[in-house]
């Protein structure tokens, strides 16, 4: 018997209309856990590196995490992977909610989708009954609207639906896949739309078995209580009405302008009133005691939900206030667009208009006021109408298509992907490495275990490390104890910290655990529920594997190296590992490149950013080294060059 897993994949070919239930090898989970880890292995094995993301051969993989549908709390984030037309690299995306656990109860660990349907279809999974169904009646419908329609049509409120909106249907690069009020961004909605797959509806009523039941359940109960009561877990922004952090420090408009003293008491009172006068409730994801999502009914708009910085992006891009975000967010969510990337695309277009690179004639019928303009451009973009057809490719590609100097306005992307609008003064070395080399594309998916800033006094630092259960190694306590200024960490410490931060995300995204109780959250307070010291035990109890801390750390590194190699095979090299040039005002190219070289050496990568044979073999990835050598990406003697 398989524990924690079902042991089966669902293989769908939309071109041929075929559906197969395929048994999987338990060793896959031991090597790659599940989620992004196993999906990376599939993309490596089955999608040749020259495959166009819009080719029918691109795979779209919906994965459960290894710990989904076990009693382990907050393990509910579904992972979606494919190759993205925006970056031409591996897309990494997640959404919370109920979809992954439901899929496991239906009897599948993942859905692997290839091919393209002729017209819109949806996939209906009800345990062993799986059908590709006509979805032409859902054309143009919003994301939650689609979910609602399918629940009525299938006469089952317990069906869990993931759907694309107009943006995905029209192959907008910022398109998301939405499930209830959670959405998966960063390049997956566009591929789902390209495959003409409007939605997946899943319902499952099967058991998921646990290897060592009583121990795992009791431990899960303890974790449930910890997560429920700890301030170190969850999204504090759901309740904390003081959002001076983002508004005073992040940049407004097209990631241009910081307004350092924006926040005020009077503003906070007004915004708090807007929220509480219109908030229905706070909701949570499957088997998680936190309630991170605020659900808002704004007059005249559809009910929507948001978490974290998602409540700020639209009004900050537009230089407006929270009421504008509340007005537009529900509309954007139904269209299914990334609330991080989309506002930047609009602000970028309006800046080009203001500076005369785009003309009024490019925006026929656009209203004069900012609110009206945002709605106009949102609508044009998701429909790919007029200028919207260009903007729908994202800032970086749109800038290239527009030309005429527009490229200079593409100043906040990495590897052609829109970054958080952060513009700071002095370089932070760890953040330099994370933004440069992180292949999850957004800093929120890379940072998170080691605090962002030192504490001012030795006493405070001592108190912090004394209760710091999450550290994988005592050396991190020493780093923190002796850390006085942001940039005073040694390169060695910086490399260690970056590796730890990254590793936790690679583990979360393979086990399905939410970053808000694990990888992302430790940097704020340190008191997370999941870490290197309890994850091995949880994985062992759930699956029956003999997982140790060393093995799990190695597994995280294995997945990381595999993702790097996948992207190397598609052309990723050192020259792409660059943060936005204006991310920090004060730069030192020599220092930065020196640090990058040290990091590559630390990771066991060549000076061009490719994992060496020696490193790959130490991670049981000899087959990857063979392939990279065959393609000439790794030279046979390259490990000596790296050394």
């Amino acid at each position: 018997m398989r524990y924690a897993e079902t042991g089966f994949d669902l293989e769908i070919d939309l071109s041929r209309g075929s559906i197969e239930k395929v048994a999987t090898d338990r060793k896959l989970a031991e090597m790659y856990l599940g989620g992004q880890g196993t999906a990376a292995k599939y993309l490596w094995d089955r999608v040749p590196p020259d495959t166009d993301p819009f080719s029918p051969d691109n795979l779209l993989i919906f994965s459960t995490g290894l710990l989904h549908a076990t009693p382990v709390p907050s393990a509910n984030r579904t992972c979606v992977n494919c190759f993205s037309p925006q970056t031409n690299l591996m897309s990494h995306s997640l959404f919370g909610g109920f979809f992954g656990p439901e899929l496991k109860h239906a009897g599948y660990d993942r859905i692997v989708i290839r091919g393209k349907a002729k017209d819109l279809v949806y996939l209906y999974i009800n345990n062993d009954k799986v059908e590709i169904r006509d979805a032409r009646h859902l054309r143009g419908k919003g994301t939650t609207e689609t979910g609602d329609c399918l629940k009525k049509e299938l006469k089952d409120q317990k069906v869990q639906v993931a759907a694309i909106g107009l943006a995905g249907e029209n192959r907008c690069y910022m398109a998301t896949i939405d499930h209830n009020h959670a959405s998966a961004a960063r390049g997956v909605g566009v591929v789902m739309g390209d495959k003409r797959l409007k939605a997946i509806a899943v319902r499952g009523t099967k058991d998921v078995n646990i290897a060592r039941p009583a121990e795992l359940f009791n431990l899960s109960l303890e974790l449930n209580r910890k997560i429920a009561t700890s301030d170190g877990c969850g999204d504090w922004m759901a309740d904390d009405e003081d959002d001076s952090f983002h508004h005073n420090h992040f940049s407004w408009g097209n990631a241009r302008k910081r307004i350092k003293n924006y926040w005020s008491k009077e503003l906070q009172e007004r915004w708090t009133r807007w929220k509480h006068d219109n908030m229905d409730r706070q909701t949570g994801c499957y088997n998680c005691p936190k309630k991170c999502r605020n659900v808002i009914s704004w007059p005249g708009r559809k009910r929507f939900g948001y978490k974290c910085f998602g409540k700020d992006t639209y009004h900050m891009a537009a230089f407006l206030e929270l009421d504008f975000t509340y007005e537009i967010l529900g509309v954007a969510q139904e269209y299914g667009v990334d609330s991080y990337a989309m506002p930047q695309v609009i602000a970028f277009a309006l800046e080009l208009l203001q500076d005369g690179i785009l003309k009024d004639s490019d925006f026929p019928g656009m209203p004069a006021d900012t609110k009206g303009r945002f709605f106009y451009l949102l609508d044009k973009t998701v429909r790919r109408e007029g200028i919207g057809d260009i903007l729908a490719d994202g800032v970086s590609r749109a800038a290239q298509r527009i030309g005429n100097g527009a490229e200079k306005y593409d100043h906040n992307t990495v590897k052609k992907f829109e970054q958080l609008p952060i513009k700071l003064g002095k370089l932070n070395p760890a953040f330099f490495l994370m933004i440069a080399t992180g292949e999850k594309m957004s800093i929120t998916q890379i940072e998170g275990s080691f605090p962002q800033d030192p504490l001012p006094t030795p006493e405070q630092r001592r108190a912090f490390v004394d209760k710091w259960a999450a550290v994988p190694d005592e050396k991190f306590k020493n780093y923190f104890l002796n850390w006085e200024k942001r940039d005073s960490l040694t390169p060695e410490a910086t490399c260690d910290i970056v590796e730890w931060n990254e590793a936790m995300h690679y583990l979360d995204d393979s086990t399905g655990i939410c970053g808000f109780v694990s990888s992302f959250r430790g940097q704020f307070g340190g008191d997370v529920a999941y870490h290197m010291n309890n994850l091995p035990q949880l994985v062992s109890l759930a699956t029956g594997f003999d997982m140790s801390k060393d093995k799990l750390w190695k597994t995280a590194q294995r997945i990381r190296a595999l993702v790097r190699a996948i992207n190397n095979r598609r052309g990723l090299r050192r020259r792409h590992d660059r943060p936005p040039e204006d991310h920090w005002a004060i730069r030192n190219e020599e220092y930065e490149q020196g640090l990058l070289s040290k990091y590559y050496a630390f990771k066991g990568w060549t000076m061009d950013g490719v994992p060496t044979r020696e490193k790959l073999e130490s991670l049981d990835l000899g087959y990857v080294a063979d392939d990279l050598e065959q393609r000439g990406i790794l030279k046979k003697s390259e490990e000596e060059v790296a050394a």
Partner: protein
Amino acid sequence: MNASLATKTIKEILVDIDKCTGCRACEMACSAFHAIPRYSSINPSKARIRVVADEINDEYVPIRAGDYTPSECNGRHIYTIAGKQYSECSFCGASCPSRDYFVEPDSGLPLKCDMCETVPPLAEPMCVQVCGDDALTYVEYEVERDAKEQPARGEVEIGLEALVKKYGVEAVLKSAAQLSKPAKS
């Protein structure tokens, strides 16, 4: 009359639907607790508590499994509470043919909440223990028995009554008399 006969213990799970976040941890924990062996499998569709959730309507109501009923009710009420419409089904714990709640998905047998009664007893039913937001709370209190109230009947009594209904009291007495004779050696 001694105290234990004069009073009885009432056990209740109180539901505050304004506090429910719809996380369904209660379903998970219930299915784990009732799995055989205990905690060996997870399956919310076997839970004896279900969250009736409708995100579009902002409706989140945890309901516990009550009695089995062989037929649907005739005509369900629609209740409007604080501007939102709820079907009567949203509050009904019956295991009934109109929906797949509270029916064991493989066998089709009805499921019923037993308040996690076990030896030794739990401090609180498992669904309450995992509810992080106090949408579910457990209360236990003593009430005085009504003087006219009959003490609860045992299984033998209930079974005998069914036999009497079917075969008549005489046949049952005769059989009982026969069964009570010592077996011939």
